[in-house]
């Protein structure tokens, strides 16, 4: 831990990135309190990773990677447990971008269908509209693998007749 994040360094990272982590977690999870739980978990993981973050050429890709992991874990454990798929996210959905709500519903279905890697890629593609190059950067897999997974995910979404209009 000697080269880990110092308190002020961690506080600075939190100051800068926590609001966008919250925003994205809110999009993926739908509930504000869940989103704050995710923020905490994301920063705890940054803390555990120590100084790794400093070496990132594009810090937001790192933030995306960790946030995706954390949120999908939360989503999956919830999807396994409860929540009828079509359940609207209550009053909280009011005023939200309908595309986001739609993407989240898709994600809920896919969370039961896909393995971790495919779900991660599906999220970055359908929900976050990342380009293939960006997905490669975030997930750290080869272009070829990402391409193959994307194809698989699109096919599955079409089969489920869930692919959002783009």
């Amino acid at each position, binding site marked *: 831990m000697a080269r880990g*994040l110092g*308190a002020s360094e*961690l*506080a600075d990272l*939190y*100051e*800068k*990135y*926590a*609001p*966008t982590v*919250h*925003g*994205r977690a*809110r*999009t993926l999870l739908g509930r*504000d*309190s869940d989103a*704050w*739980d995710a*923020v*905490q*978990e994301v*920063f*705890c993981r940054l*803390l555990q990773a120590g100084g790794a973050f400093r070496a990132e050429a*594009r*810090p*937001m*890709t790192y*933030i*995306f990677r960790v946030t995706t992991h954390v949120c999908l874990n939360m989503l999956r454990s919830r999807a396994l447990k409860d929540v009828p798929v079509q359940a609207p996210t209550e009053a909280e959905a009011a005023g939200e*971008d309908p595309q986001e709500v739609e993407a989240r519903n898709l994600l809920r279905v896919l969370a039961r269908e896909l393995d971790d890697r495919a779900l991660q890629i599906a999220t970055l593609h359908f*929900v*976050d*509209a*990342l*380009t293939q190059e*960006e997905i490669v950067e*975030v997930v750290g897999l080869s272009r070829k693998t990402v391409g193959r997974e994307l194809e698989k995910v699109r096919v599955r979404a079409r089969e489920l007749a869930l692919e959002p209009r*783009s």
Partner: protein
Amino acid sequence: MSGHLSRLALDELVVEDAPPPAHLATCAQCQAKLARLREAAGAARVAPEFAWTRTRVLAQRAAPAPARRLLRTWRWAVPLALALGLASVVVPREPPEGVRVKGGPFVSVVRQSDGAVDAPLSPGDVVTLSLKPAPYRYALVFATDAAGKVSLLWPARGTQSGDPTALVMPPTFIVTPGDFVLDAFFSDAPLPAEPGRAALAIRAAACAALELSSDCQPPARLEGAAHHYRLAVPVSSSP
């Protein structure tokens, strides 16, 4: 694909990690999305959860390894006492019964692992504050760290005394390194917190000037306070 900016690119613009790409100037849709994300980020920053979560994250950094695991599993922390070396976390757990029998109002610190009362603590110990104001009604508890910094410990987010009988859950803390002193003021009517904090800070500063521990003298009498109780809690340097 559309050529619109991805969430990754938009988030980078929100945190100003990247300069705006040319597309942005020509696309009303992306501009609107960016505006919405900026607005949401601004709202998140001023939400109370923003500060609470920051406190929990920083407490996690300060806490020794065993306490970190516990901290992670707790959802709502009360934002205080970080500077003092304590992370306050409200958990749905009762302190052990039969804390102790003693005359007069007092405050005690109960270690959750074994129920030890007012025992010397180690970093990582989880403790609850047991408040017994009888025969008075209200309590106001401050904590002073070894450096003489005084913080209102309970009520955590108040500006005056609280009524311990109204407590739903006991105030719970994770101990981090450094001795501390608790000062409780009991009264029949709520006391404002600031005079108490000031009285303690003045004495702590005086003690520091004499190079004595921060509890070298009791605080000046506090107007309205019926009873003052002090508890010094040593914390060993290793977990």
